């Protein structure tokens, strides 16, 4: 399904892949993440599971991110969707607009550096995985 130079099948696949990565990332780093946040498990994950609203917001947001990432590469012209171009775009967007804002907002809210590293690493993974999937499936 290619609409307006964007392969929407690849967009959905990229969103799903990055969402699964996010679940694995916070699953593995859950303990360190909670220590960095400074809140207990009961407060962050009542019942031992992430709140459904967090999972839904994450997926919808990652769907938008994948669509916009695909759109930014589609603007380069027909035939420009490749793994290399998608990874370069993803890396630049992470550095220019995600990491910058994360570092600033966390600094102003006096969050621990470990939290910025864990959350920043999550977004780098999300964007690179989306770039990889878009480059592989969307070309």
């Amino acid at each position, binding site marked *: 399904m290619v609409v307006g130079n964007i392969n929407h099948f690849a967009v959905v696949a990229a969103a799903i892949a990055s969402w699964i990565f996010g679940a694995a990332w916070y699953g593995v780093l859950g303990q360190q993440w909670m220590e960095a946040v400074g809140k207990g498990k009961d407060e962050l994950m009542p019942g031992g599971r992430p709140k459904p609203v967090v999972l839904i917001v994450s997926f919808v947001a990652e769907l938008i991110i994948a669509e*916009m990432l695909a759109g930014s590469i589609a603007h380069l012209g027909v035939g420009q969707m490749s793994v290399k171009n998608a990874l370069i775009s993803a890396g630049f*967007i992470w550095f220019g607009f995600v990491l910058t804002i994360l570092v600033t907002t966390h600094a102003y809210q006096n969050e621990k550096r470990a939290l910025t590293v864990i959350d920043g690493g999550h977004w780098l993974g999300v964007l690179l995985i989306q770039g990889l999937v878009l480059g592989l499936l969307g070309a």
Partner: protein
Amino acid sequence: MDLTALEAKLKAMGLDLPAQLAHYAGQINSTAVLAALVAGWIVGWIWYAVVGDVWAGEATTGVKGSGFTPRRQIFGGIAQVIMTLMLGSFMTRLGYTNAVGGVHTAWLLWFGFVMTTILVNYANLGKRVGLALIDSIHWLLVLTAMGLIIGSFNQWGIGVPVQASAPAAIVQPTVKPAGG
């Protein structure tokens, strides 16, 4: 590690970093970048002056010690330098180099990558929706001001480098044109 071999490998992959950095530096409209930074800083200052009390109320419910300090303002300043350069790069890349195009690019980047990541991070941390709104609107205003300034300077040829072939703030050299 053999740096010469690494550089040759990167060049073979189409990533000639020293040449690209030199190319970047030559194409940057430093007048526009500076003006965009000042505009972004002023907009941010006005925004938090208006909603500062609400922000403090929302933020301090989560973490103590939040707020403005010189160190944090330096962090914010460095972040905005990077954002301005990247915004200029994206405007050129997307082909939206005038004032309207600058605002358009700013809004696309905000909607796609800024609002989304802030909402997820704040939801994850159990922060209030009000705080997410205040902070994400701040970045929308900052990016809009930056896009408007960079685009206007391009449109009216203010501070455009003489050697630049196109009236653009920055040329993104890492991606070859179609058929190239």
